[in-house]
């Protein structure tokens, strides 16, 4: 939404303040995406490992596809974040109104839309990751009580990590303030 814009004293904000905080936000974003990417990859590889002899070929194929998909998504997200501005440093120096970056720079990927899309993809990935164990547990030959206990354990993870966490993250991307 564009509305009437009134600028007042944005120039009074010292560049040293804006630069440090934007750079910090940039690092936090990078660390978040890399850590969550590796953790999800680890979970998928763990599924592959524990079901090596027990699960069907279809299950292994799904897990392998998910592993490849996870690697691709993390790589894309990484490059989107690093090169959201070019030259990279202008991501945090462009708000310095007193001494703006010299020369031409572009920030084609700096916006919320790519990240909302990627958060949407992450929701799907989390949902599949959380659902996969149920496929194996269904055919597990254990007592009914043990099966219920296992389902409950995975369901807690499903609820907290799989859905709630990602949805909150997406919401915070959308209304990031």
């Amino acid at each position, binding site marked *: 939404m564009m509305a009437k*814009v009134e*600028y007042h004293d944005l120039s009074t904000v010292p560049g040293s303040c804006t630069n440090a905080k934007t750079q910090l936000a940039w690092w936090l974003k990078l660390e*978040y995406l890399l850590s969550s990417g590796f953790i999800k990859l680890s979970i998928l590889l763990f599924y592959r490992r524990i079901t090596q002899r027990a699960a069907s070929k279809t299950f292994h194929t799904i897990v392998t596809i998910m592993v490849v998909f996870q690697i691709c998504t993390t790589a894309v997200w990484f490059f989107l974040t690093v090169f959201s501005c070019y030259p990279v440093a202008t991501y945090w120096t462009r708000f310095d109104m007193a001494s703006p970056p010299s020369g031409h720079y572009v920030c084609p990927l700096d916006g919320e839309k790519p990240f909302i899309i990627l958060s949407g993809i992450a929701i799907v990935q989390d949902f599949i990751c959380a659902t996969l164990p149920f496929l194996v547990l269904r055919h597990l030959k254990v007592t009914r009580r043990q099966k219920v206990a296992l389902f409950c354990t995975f369901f807690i993870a499903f609820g907290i990590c799989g859905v709630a966490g990602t949805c909150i993250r997406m919401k915070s991307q959308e209304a990031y303030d």
Partner: protein
Amino acid sequence: MASAMQANGQVSSEILAGVVTYPQSVIDSWPPANFVNPTLHPPTIIIYSAIFGTLALASTIGRLWSRFKVQGNGGVDDWCFMASLPFSFPLVFMTINACSRFYNKVFGLVHNVLFSTNQFPALLGCGIRARRDDGKGRIPRPLDCTRQLY
């Protein structure tokens, strides 16, 4: 960018696309800026990060110890998990650091410009009250470190 500041003192909209403003009556209702002894945000994020960061550290050490030392069969999934550690634990510490040092103060209104998502990290904590309009005239509920602005 040719020039951030135009001759008339206004900031070029080239870098501030998506900026919106609130009605003057709403702006007038906000308290004035206070840089001397600003209100502090509640330490919610710091507490959450400390609790879950500690739990994550303990469970990580437990998992890796059991796989590599007890069972002696660490696999590619464990190595992948280890690869996430250089990013996940600094993330916890940096979040605590950022929320306790940078993003914990409520300075109040400095000017009435609202910023879109990508501009807000630069201004938050620098004495700017950055709010994002939801396009329907409503003020979205603040999240995380930026709570209790209103």
